[in-house]
């Protein structure tokens, strides 16, 4: 007889609230469902109230782990919309921070994956080495997590040559440690037993579900925006797309760890090649009416932003699609037939990020309201509070 096991929304396993429903027959998982919406904050709506230069600070708060990916994708979208040129030096700085972020995100995931299968040594090690990347980011940008580097048309801050040179020894230790972690994880018989052949995502399924990022690359699909539609300076760097054919959890671990090494290599190349002179910001005057898209390869896969402009100083529509949204459906393929104990690591192996994904929710089972209604209500209330019928901007435009 089938039983449903609810996991969540608050449980010790993951940082974010989410609700899994595992339908099991004895030990075997026969179906899985995910309920999300706990993290929906209404960022797309907020973004319509901000000017083009303010939005990067907002979208940085979409997700704290990808706090460079979302602003980057947004800036690419705005630059696409307004045909804005980005100076060479700014591109290097953007790519540098992006790769450091990838290292931090992959090490973070490797640690959490160890924690999910009860192997806390891996967790402590990976997070200890991750501190080195955070120190580097702090050295280069001044912040550990939310870097605040992006702006349409360039970057906010310079990075000095001394700082870049100072990063080299740290990168060298980081490479040693990551290689050690990689070898230690792949040599470990316990991890091998827990991960090999578990949660296999066949290549056809990865394609059918539209899986992205390391999840698809571990199933043999070399989908990577950095190679397919190069932005930044990726076409000038020497690197390769890591793929594995097996599609199991071990392959996903391997892809992420190898990508970490690849990112360290790229970071070193960027430090060598970054021009010392030149502007970092093309200071675009305004964004003409039109629309633009930005695709960015976030640590979890392709992050997509769409921006529509009506020629004013704010986006009229801003749409975000995060990679986890596309990776969720793969659970239907990977979890079935596995045991409950393995389900945790399979669910975690796509590196789900809910705060990125939750762009819309239905509150039907909570309060009987619709989000659109709520957001319109909010605007109407404000207008009433200020005693105007139109928004201040609309009034200015009318005059």
């Amino acid at each position: 007889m089938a039983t449903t096991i609810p996991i969540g929304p608050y449980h010790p396993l993951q940082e974010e609230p989410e609700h899994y429903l595992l339908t099991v027959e004895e030990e075997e998982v026969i179906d899985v469902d995910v309920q999300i919406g706990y993290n929906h904050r209404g960022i797309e709506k907020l973004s319509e109230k901000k000017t083009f230069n303010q939005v990067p600070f907002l979208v940085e708060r979409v997700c704290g782990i990808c706090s460079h990916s979302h602003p980057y994708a947004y800036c690419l979208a705005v630059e696409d919309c307004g045909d804005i040129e980005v100076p060479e030096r700014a591109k290097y700085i953007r790519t540098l921070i992006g790769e450091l972020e990838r290292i931090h995100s992959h090490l973070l995931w490797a640690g959490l994956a160890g924690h999910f299968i009860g192997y806390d040594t891996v967790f402590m090690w990976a997070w200890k080495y991750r501190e080195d990347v955070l120190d580097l980011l702090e050295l280069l940008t001044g912040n550990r997590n939310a870097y605040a580097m992006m702006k349409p048309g360039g970057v906010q801050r310079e990075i000095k040559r001394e700082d870049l040179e100072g990063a080299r020894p740290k990168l060298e230790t980081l490479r040693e440690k990551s290689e050690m972690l990689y070898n230690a994880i792949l040599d470990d018989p316990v991890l091998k037993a827990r991960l090999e052949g578990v949660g296999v995502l066949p290549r056809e399924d990865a394609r059918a579900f539209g899986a992205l990022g390391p999840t698809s690359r571990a199933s043999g699909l070399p989908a990577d925006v950095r190679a397919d539609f190069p932005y930044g300076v990726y076409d000038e760097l020497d690197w390769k797309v890591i793929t594995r054919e097996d599609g199991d959890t071990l392959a996903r671990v391997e892809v992420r760890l190898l990508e970490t090494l690849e990112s360290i290599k790229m970071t070193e190349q960027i430090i060598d090649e970054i021009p010392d002179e030149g502007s970092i910001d093309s200071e675009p005057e305004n964004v003409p009416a039109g629309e633009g898209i930005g695709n960015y390869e976030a640590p979890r896969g392709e992050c997509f932003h769409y921006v529509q402009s009506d020629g004013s100083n704010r986006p009229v529509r801003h749409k975000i699609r995060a990679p986890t949204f596309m990776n969720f459906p793969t659970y239907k393929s990977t979890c079935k037939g596995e045991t409950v104990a393995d389900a945790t690591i399979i669910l975690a192996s796509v590196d789900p990020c809910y705060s990125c994904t939750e762009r819309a929710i239905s509150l039907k089972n909570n309060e009987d309201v619709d989000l659109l209604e709520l957001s319109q209500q909010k605007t109407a209330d404000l207008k009433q509070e200020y005693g105007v019928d139109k928004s201040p901007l609309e009034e200015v435009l009318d005059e």
Partner: protein
Amino acid sequence: MNWKSWGISKSPWLYHVNTGSCNNCDIEIVDCLTPKFDVERFGGKLVGSPRHADVLMVTGPMTRKSKPRFERILEASAKPFIVAAVGTCACSKGMFHDAYNCIGPVRKVTEALDEEIMVLNIPGCPPRPEAIIDGLVTGLNQLKEVKL
């Protein structure tokens, strides 16, 4: 200080509640547990159930869907406990002050339920692990002056 405050201030067990945060505060809380910052020096430990917890580490601006769940967690927690609002979102909603789906901040929800619940505010977006540890230690030291 009575025996209850003394008990909490010695080895606070932490339970982590995310009410719609952006993950940044959460990873900084987890960072506190890892070798570089290591809150276990102060007896702090992340536990899996609010029934075991002395301190609820709350992050995020309290979305509509998580509010009823958070209230249930407050009811389920072993009394006495303190709530630590970690991050600007949890302290004051910060960037999300005018978002339609955020009905925080945390203090508003705890006060509506029970005025007595002590709320520690640890601002920052995200607060660094040092700040979180400092906030916790300062808060726990202040427990010496209050009766729970």
